[in-house]
């Protein structure tokens, strides 16, 4: 209210119903009441001029283009053959055409509105006061009001109230959190699940290595310099339920196998290989991606996620990148029927590292 009086102080009183006032005068007065001074207000086009007519035509053109494009969108949406067909047929144009028509429709309406606002409306410069200044008096009054509330509650004089309130509410807070935490919590070491995989022998039966279609694997199936992804031959072994289990079975060439055996011996994994075959966990010890880019000449295994490189002939030792731990080796042998089996589960923890990993 004080601002209003300040405004009208120097001038004659403002009467909104004064017939001499133009609408702009009223608007300007309204702005002044909001501490805004319209200092510059200038039409960009002369009413009825050629320039105005041209701009109006442009804006109208934009809006009509919108209608046209939107109609095209609907026509295409309804009648275009859109179902997937192999090859490069018309169905591959469905999404692009929808995008094109929708995009043109939206852009045209956007530029139509923008041209209207930018070119046809008067240019203006207004100045508004910020009133950033703070009133220390108000601060004090509000502060006193709040302090007064606290006084009236009398927590200081009646400390028991405060203490008992806190003591009473603390468990309530815990009650709110309990169902969430209690519901979510799940023992990560239940059934020793972090340390075991599908290759752990069941009922004394060694688990076969199988392909993605469940068939077991004979040594002759993999050529030297070849590799195959193998899964535990158990029910649902080839599924994400056994996300930790998949291994890479590699048939090394003679010299590489020789070196690999020597290094295995040193690592105490002397009998983990069978012949020239070695199996390593496919799950990277760094972040769990399938490390499976096997280079058959250099015997490096690259993980495509973070470029950790493992040297297969040296017990899958990490030789480059962020991984800090060998890929666990799966001890393998060939059973009486000539198929690969896991002699035991992995002897190290599979997958990414964690705090209590033994």
């Amino acid at each position, binding site marked *: 209210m004080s601002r209003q009086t300040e405004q009208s102080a120097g001038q004659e009183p403002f009467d909104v119903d004064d017939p001499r006032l133009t609408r702009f005068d009223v608007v300007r007065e309204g702005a002044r009441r909001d501490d805004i001074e319209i200092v510059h207000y200038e039409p960009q086009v002369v009413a009825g001029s050629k320039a105005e007519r041209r701009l109006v035509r442009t804006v109208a053109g934009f809006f009509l283009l919108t209608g046209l494009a939107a109609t095209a969108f609907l026509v295409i949406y309804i009648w275009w053959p859109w179902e997937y067909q192999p090859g490069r047929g018309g169905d591959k144009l469905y999404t692009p055409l929808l995008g094109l028509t929708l995009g043109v429709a939206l852009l045209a309406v956007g530029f139509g509105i923008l041209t209207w606002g930018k070119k046809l409306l008067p240019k203006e410069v207004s100045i*508004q006061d910020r009133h950033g200044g703070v009133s220390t008096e108000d601060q004090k009054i509000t502060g006193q009001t709040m302090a007064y509330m606290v006084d009236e509650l009398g927590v200081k004089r009646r400390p028991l109230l405060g203490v008992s309130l806190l003591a009473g509410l603390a468990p309530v807070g815990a009650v709110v959190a309990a169902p969430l935490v209690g519901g979510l919590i799940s023992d990560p070491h239940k059934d020793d699940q972090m340390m075991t995989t599908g290759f752990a022998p069941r009922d004394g039966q060694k688990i076969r290595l199988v392909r993605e279609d469940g068939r077991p694997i004979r040594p002759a199936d993999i050529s030297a310099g070849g590799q195959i992804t193998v899964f535990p031959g158990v029910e649902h072994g080839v599924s994400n339920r056994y996300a930790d289990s998949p291994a890479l079975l590699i048939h090394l060439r003679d010299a590489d196998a020789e070196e690999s055996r020597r290094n295995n011996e040193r690592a105490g994994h002397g009998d983990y290989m069978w012949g020239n075959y070695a199996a390593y966990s496919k799950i990277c010890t760094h972040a769990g*991606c399938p490390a499976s880019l096997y280079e058959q000449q250099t015997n490096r295994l690259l993980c*495509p996620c973070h470029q950790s490189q493992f040297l297969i002939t040296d017990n899958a030792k990490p030789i480059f990148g962020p991984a800090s731990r060998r890929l666990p080796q799966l001890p393998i042998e060939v059973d009486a029927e000539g198929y690969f089996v896991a002699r035991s589960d992995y002897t190290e923890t599979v997958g990414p590292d964690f705090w209590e990993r033994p």
Partner: protein
Amino acid sequence: MKRRKFDIAAAPANTGRAVDERFQVATPLRRLLNKVFPDHWSFLLGEIALFSFIVLLLTGVFLTFFYEPALTEVIYNGSYAPLRGTPMSVAYASTLDISFDVRGGLIMRQMHHWAALLFMAAIVVHMLRVFFTGAFRKPRETNWIIGSLLFWVGFLAGFTGYSLPDDGLSGTGLRIASAIMLSIPVIGSWVTAAVFNGEFPGTIIISRFFIAHVLLIPGLLIALISVHLGLVFKQKHTQWPGPGRTNANVVGERMFPRYAIKQGGFFMVVFGVIALLGGLFQINPIWLFGPYEAWVVSAASQPDWYVMFLDGSTRLMPDWQIDIPIGDGYVIPPLFWPTVVLPGILVGLSTLYPFLEARYLKDYRSHNLLQRPRDVPFRTGLGAMAVTFYVVLTLSGANDVIADKFQISLNAMTWAGRIGLLILPPLAYYVTYRICLGLQQHDREVLAHGVETGIIRRLPDGRFVEVHQPLSAADGNGHGELDYAGWVVPKKMNRLGALGPAIRGFFYPIEKPVEAPVSPGHPPVEPRAEREEIGSGETRS
């Protein structure tokens, strides 16, 4: 004719009166309509993020009608022949259905994804604008913090969103996320087991991510965005220094009609650009990735661009594992540092920066005028340093693609990233600092000596000198020193007397203004009598 009781012409006024008698909105509404906003292109960057968020909400709601968040295994039997008969999760199958069996579903999916990328890109660009112009200073620190939180919440929204299709690429990302959670010392395995309800991947993660992605995170985003905009409104927008502009006023256009119309038009433009992107540029072709299977991976596996810097930091991290020989022995894996500690530091630094800077400069005043980046070399340098750091990490996140396409050794790329991460940011700081000083000096020279005219004059003694046009009435020596006002100094003859370009037109010059009463250059803003101060309103050396 005049029989009818209902007078159409008086209807708006009557309705208005009726509403105001009940809600008393006339005054606040007028205040809203009259609110003044300064006009500058860089103030529109945040709007891009806001508008893409609206598009995200619109397209996202559409997608929820067809998406099924479940990991139940089904055999796909939809239209896309190359996957028919493949076992996959319901989540993946329903995303394929959106792409191939729901009419117009693919463009919605793609628009949603592009809008998400644009949302994050606009947030970053907007944040850079705010940083480099000092718009985060008191009283706007809170809004800066909310803004940086918006980036991280948007990051979570993006991550939960692109994990939903359960395709090969996003599943790999989810696998890495689980490894990141596992790497947290002491509680890692418990956190992971709580999130995945047991071992990765479990069967519930997708439905948990779904509710986070469609309810919790958008709710948080809406809340943060509302406060963000509310504060901009309350505190009024910052403005560049210039004639008549002070720390205590806002010079610009009233919200209605022009400013609001421009905003509405810009929303349509943003929407249109997203529609074009969604239709013309293929994004996230999940049908090529196949369903997520723990043993399947593709070369060049990357997350979306705004997560890529964390992927990069992970790739560059050396294999430093910390073994703690207590009891059975404990491990802090190398993954922990670049993916948990680094983002933690970044969140802390980015949110605290306004306070750190105020403390360093001992500047606790309120600032409503922006600073040109050149005028605060140390901040501009720090910003350049941060940008360089981020860019090196992001590029490293795609270093295998770069290595492959430009035929560089992958290992060399990793080493280049490691070294670059240490060397380039300080270098960027130094170079930026020097450039800022150079620009400052040039401004001062022009203010002191005038604009280069390009006219070479030969003096009687044979020397050649260039004639300078002084910017102010010259003193006896032909020198008229002007104070720097924190704003653009005209450096070309055709810029004299104008803030905007003297040659009008955006892409091509409009040489002959027709009919319209054009004021040449900036409109004459006469300061009111009580405001003497013209210029930045701040002291500068």
